[in-house]
């Protein structure tokens, strides 16, 4: 295998879509992780599963129904949390199981679209069409532009909601906007890694980046590098070893995380040794 695989149309589309999705997940994911909403992506992915099943059951293009169900679920979850002060993790569990329940019921009623459903459960980036690639590029571009435009307000609100409110920032509106963006990101990324692994793409690159960086910008950039590297390396190696690209992408991001933990631990031990030596010299 050499560079010739890059000349294949399906591989070009997979890489372009993969990079766009990786960037989108990384940018949106940092805000979710820092708001302690890491599992929110997982819950949205499971609600999208209900949407996919509804689309297949009704004969509508399932990605559209997934978008609708996912965005409505995200907004509903946020509203209920704000109104009834139910804890975030409990609401995530409710959303996760209700999406799954809806999907399972529709599958059992229809009983015959399991093959299609598998591509959504585990991702099928190598089969992504030109139309879908354009859609993913458009969505990723729009989301990144919106986040860049609202970057200052989003960072401030994520850091401390009360102080952001005092600085006249529309905190509630921003929260709704962020969950809608998260819903769109989750449905788009289903095609890369599938429903079952979507949240890992949102969480792992950001947690890995946070091990190294001091500042917010630095973390965002590192996270994007880790996410894009995982997506590209995952797609290429999965083709070489003939394994599922979704699983490979997540596995590579986990290897990066594990390696980063090792480096961080080594650095900490080295720092302790240096401090001990200095203390011995002083004494």
């Amino acid at each position: 295998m050499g560079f010739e695989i890059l000349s294949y149309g399906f591989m070009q589309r997979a890489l372009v879509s993969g990079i766009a999705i990786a960037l989108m997940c990384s940018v949106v994911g940092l805000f979710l992780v820092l708001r302690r909403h890491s599992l929110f992506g997982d819950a949205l992915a499971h609600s999208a599963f209900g949407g996919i099943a509804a689309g297949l059951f009704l004969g509508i293009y399932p990605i559209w129904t997934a978008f609708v169900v996912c965005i409505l679920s995200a907004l509903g979850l946020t509203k209920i949390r704000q109104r009834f002060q139910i804890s975030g993790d409990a609401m995530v569990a409710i959303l996760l199981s209700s999406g799954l329940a809806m999907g399972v019921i529709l599958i059992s009623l229809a009983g015959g679209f399991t093959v299609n459903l598998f591509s959504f459960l585990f991702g099928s980036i190598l089969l992504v069409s030109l139309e879908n690639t354009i859609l993913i590029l458009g969505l990723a571009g729009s989301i990144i532009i919106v986040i860049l435009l609202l970057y200052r307000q989003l960072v401030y609100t994520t850091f401390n909601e009360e102080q952001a409110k005092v600085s006249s920032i529309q905190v509630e509106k921003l929260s709704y906007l962020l969950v809608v963006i998260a819903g769109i990101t989750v449905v788009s990324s289903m095609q890369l890694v599938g429903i079952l692994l979507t949240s890992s793409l949102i969480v792992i690159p950001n947690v890995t980046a946070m091990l190294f960086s001091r500042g917010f910008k630095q973390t965002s950039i590192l996270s994007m590098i880790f996410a894009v590297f995982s997506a590209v390396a995952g797609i290429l190696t999965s083709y070489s070893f003939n394994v599922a690209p979704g699983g490979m992408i997540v596995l590579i991001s986990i290897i990066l995380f594990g390696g980063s933990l090792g480096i961080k631990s080594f650095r900490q031990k080295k720092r302790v040794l240096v401090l001990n030596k200095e203390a011995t010299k002083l004494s």
Partner: protein
Amino acid sequence: MIVEIENLTINYDGILALDNVSLSVEEKDFLGIIGPNGAGKTTLFSCMLGLLNNYNGEIKFFGANIRKSKQYLHQIGFVPQKPVFEKNFPATVAEVVGMGLTKNQKDNTIDKVLQKVWLHELSHRRIGDLSGGQQQRVFIAKALVNDPQILILDEPVTGIDLQSKDLFYQILRDLNQKDSITVIWSSHDLDAVAKLASKVACLNRTLFFHGISEEFFHNENLLKMYSESSMQMHMHNHED
């Protein structure tokens, strides 16, 4: 008067949190608001900052009713009791101070305000790596970054060591006396209030003293009334 509060009454979570509170603040005042836990100090600040709106009465900043316009917030710096943020939040001191500012504003002011709180050498450190006292000074710098006329601080030294407290108080005094910033500050620390504040408001759901600091601290009857009221509130909180 730059702040006027008239007949402020609010029920919070089914409890009468503030009952008919009226007070005013003049330019360059250093107002210490004292009162036991549960006296309504944080509720009062939440109303003043527009975080709670379901109150009766009127609050005016710079002569304008705050229900009608939120413009006054641009003239206010706020330091919360204990800023809640994720311990591993990846933001440097300079990034935290500059949050919400445009790039041009950042370049001009961050260094200046960090120097005022003696933290300019730590501007590239991660906020979570600083001590509690240093973090509170970062939040003062953050409150100063918009060049406010009024600084509101809600029990800012809770859980901070004595040395950091002294430095914190010195910074507050300089801001009030050298930079002419009006300070409204709630505290349990009566000694510090006696030393720093030019005026005192004594709150226990209702306001039972508002006036010159010396008048309060040199009047044994008022001090006795304050300690009895604090004790009653303490027992009431325990019964709850």
